[in-house]
């Protein structure tokens, strides 16, 4: 498990990260305490961290939302899908006909076949990678046969 800690700013910024694999739960929780991160362990043993996020409902008129969102930059912690969408042209040029795994906004593994990719992922101890295939041909946007 890798834990990250975010502190406020204009956008959330990752200011520290630690590798937690190899540490006992008690050690990890102690580490969280040292960073003033509030935590809670459920009856099932799941760990939850207190996370703050401010929002302003109805801040943007509905007819302007798409325009504003289209032009906004992607926060560094945005999802792999968002990152892939933004970098699709470069990714396609570099990883044609390969399976790729994305973690923390970077391609961490690639392979000609999915089985090999999964072996690389597991061998490296990578958790919850975003996996997709980068086709060689032009991108097809149709989702039905015969379109």
């Amino acid at each position, binding site marked *: 498990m890798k834990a990250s800690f975010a502190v406020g700013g204009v956008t959330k910024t990752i200011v520290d990260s630690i590798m937690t694999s190899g540490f006992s739960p008690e050690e990890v929780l102690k580490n969280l305490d040292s960073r003033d991160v509030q935590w809670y362990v459920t009856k099932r043993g799941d760990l939850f961290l207190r996370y703050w996020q401010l929002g302003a409902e109805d801040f943007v008129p509905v007819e302007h939302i798409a325009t504003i969102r289209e032009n906004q930059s992607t926060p560094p912690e945005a999802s792999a899908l968002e990152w892939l969408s933004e970098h699709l042209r470069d990714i396609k040029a570099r990883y044609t006909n390969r399976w790729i795994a994305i973690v923390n906004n970077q391609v961490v593994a690639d392979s000609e076949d*999915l089985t090999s990719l999964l072996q690389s992922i597991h061998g490296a101890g990578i958790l919850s990678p975003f996996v997709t295939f980068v086709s060689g041909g032009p991108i097809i946007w149709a*989702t039905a046969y*015969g379109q």
Partner: protein
Amino acid sequence: MVNKSFEHTIRFYQAQTPVWLPIITVNLVQQPSGSRVALPLLFDTGASTTTLRHDLYPLLGLSSWNCGDPVDTLTAGSATPVKAYRYEATVELLGKVVQCPIHLQILPLDNPLFVGLLGREKLFEEFGFGFWEKTHDLYCTLSP
């Protein structure tokens, strides 16, 4: 007037074309390890069952894509039924874990932004969805 509340907003994606797509990242929970792999799936109310590219079969721990229960399906809009193979899988969407059927099928998809279709069977019972084309947003609740 009916009011619905949604805890999550999932934005559509647009890349290289004017097309906006409602794509949801779903974690497929691998057995028996419990490790997760995140897969981008296109939200598709027309898909009766969640359907993945056939070559994703290693994620389900299978030796081939066509070793499950064969079914004929019209998913992906074929004029005539095409063959799919049915499996049971565990998926996690927005933190909620659900057991659901999965079809593996040779799909007419060739796009890195999605590797399958998020379909109705089981999953649509567990979540509530609001589709808002104008703002390119898909709203989701875990408590429909």
